[in-house]
């Protein structure tokens, strides 16, 4: 925040920071900081919202995709085609449309990040699978004809040709 103020970026605060002596923080809006401002580079902990403006949604998608994948993306709007474009062209842990945070409360659907925002998930069947080991068990039949067929060492004479004949495109 100091860096932003030093750069002359407009910061709107709900309260005077110094007037609150305990652990509470004011709500703050940071209006259109430059890309190289510290607040654009570092992860934000606290009730700070950066406002950027746009004309074309493509520019927003490009800006999102220039950065690490976020844990959540919130789209607010009723343009269904644009919603779908944002869903298709961005990567995030989860999405809530027309609100914030709600998808994390879905106990029947996985919650987690992707890329820099995390790996794995909990909630739902996907969460159960996350903490289970999916163990494949193969039980061979009582009779294994591979030896009779010459498919085990020592291989029968036509073995190479028989294997090669199966290398087909379909």
């Amino acid at each position: 925040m100091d860096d932003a103020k030093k750069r002359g970026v407009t910061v709107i605060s709900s309260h005077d920071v110094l007037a609150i002596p305990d652990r509470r923080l004011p709500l703050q809006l940071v209006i259109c900081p430059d890309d190289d401002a510290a607040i654009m580079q570092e992860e934000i902990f606290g009730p700070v919202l950066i406002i950027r403006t746009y004309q074309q949604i493509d520019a927003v998608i490009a800006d999102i995709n220039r950065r690490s994948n976020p844990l959540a993306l919130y789209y607010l709007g009723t343009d269904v085609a644009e919603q779908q474009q944002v869903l298709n062209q961005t990567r995030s842990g989860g999405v809530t449309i027309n609100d914030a945070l709600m998808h994390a409360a879905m106990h029947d659907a996985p919650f987690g990040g992707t890329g820099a925002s995390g790996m794995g998930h909990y909630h739902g069947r996907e969460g159960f699978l996350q903490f289970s080991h999916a163990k494949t068990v193969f039980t061979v039949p009582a009779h294994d004809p591979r030896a009779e067929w010459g498919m085990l060492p020592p291989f029968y004479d036509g073995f190479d040709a028989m294997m090669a004949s199966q290398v087909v495109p379909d």
Partner: protein
Amino acid sequence: MSASVSPSLTEPSATSSVDANSALSALLHRQQQAHLAHMQISVNERRERLQQVIALLVEGHQSLAAAMEADFDGRSKGFSLMNDVLGSMASLKHVRDNLIHWVPEQSRTPFAPYDQLGADAKVIYQPKGVVGIMGTWNAPVFTLLSPLACVLGAGNRAILKPSELAPRTAETLAELFARFVDPALVAVINGDARVGAQFAAQPFDHLVFTGSTAVGRKVMAAASANLTPSRWNWAASRRQLLVAKGIWMSIVAVWFWPRRPMAGNYVSAQTFFMFLRITSRRLSIAFATISGNIILLSPVILIMSRLSINITMSVFVA
């Protein structure tokens, strides 16, 4: 254990950090031993385990909400109940009521020609073991107990590390778990960031961390030394193999014949352990002789056999 251990862990002295680490190691060992002794957890037992945590929340929701209010310098109790208590409880109840659909093994189709020969293939969903869960300060109960729902539903045990930035909530959780849940099933460890680092470095079977990307990278770096599955698999496979029944000759065959033509570039890449049920002194001696050849091979292997002796002999001569 958590109740007696936790208070001392909040002391920021170097001594307590060392104590915390050894207490944590002992606790993890205890849980892992308990898991190895009882790895197949029925649906009913999983439900009953989840219900213990639900009961804990029913009993402790007011004290948790009060602790969160104090930790946040005035967070709404109603919000804490909605976000942390009810949010966790919804996860716990959802898993409790649905896990019967998730637990059963799944049949899979064997590949040709075994699909025509009576082979059987399936996937079984086995508990990983002991899961460490590191929570956040901003949702100090939810980020521990919501993942715990899936962890317990999958048949695991867990150790929780609440955020030290919400210390009253952390302490309340430790007290509640000590009262309501066997620490060999779920325990709470409290302490500062140093304890958190030690926690991430423990050889858990799985580690859950919710927090910033920067700390997440450190957690992953600490965990990478332990989270390779080899240690756990090794111990477990040995246990299973000791009860395996088989004829030693045919076991030798299983390992030798596929490897002979590839010797030199494939076999040497891995090592195998072989465990045989010895039924007589004579077989015991034979095993000792053969093991000299085989144990150069290792990390994880299950050997069960029912191949015939004549296949064995042709291989064994090689």
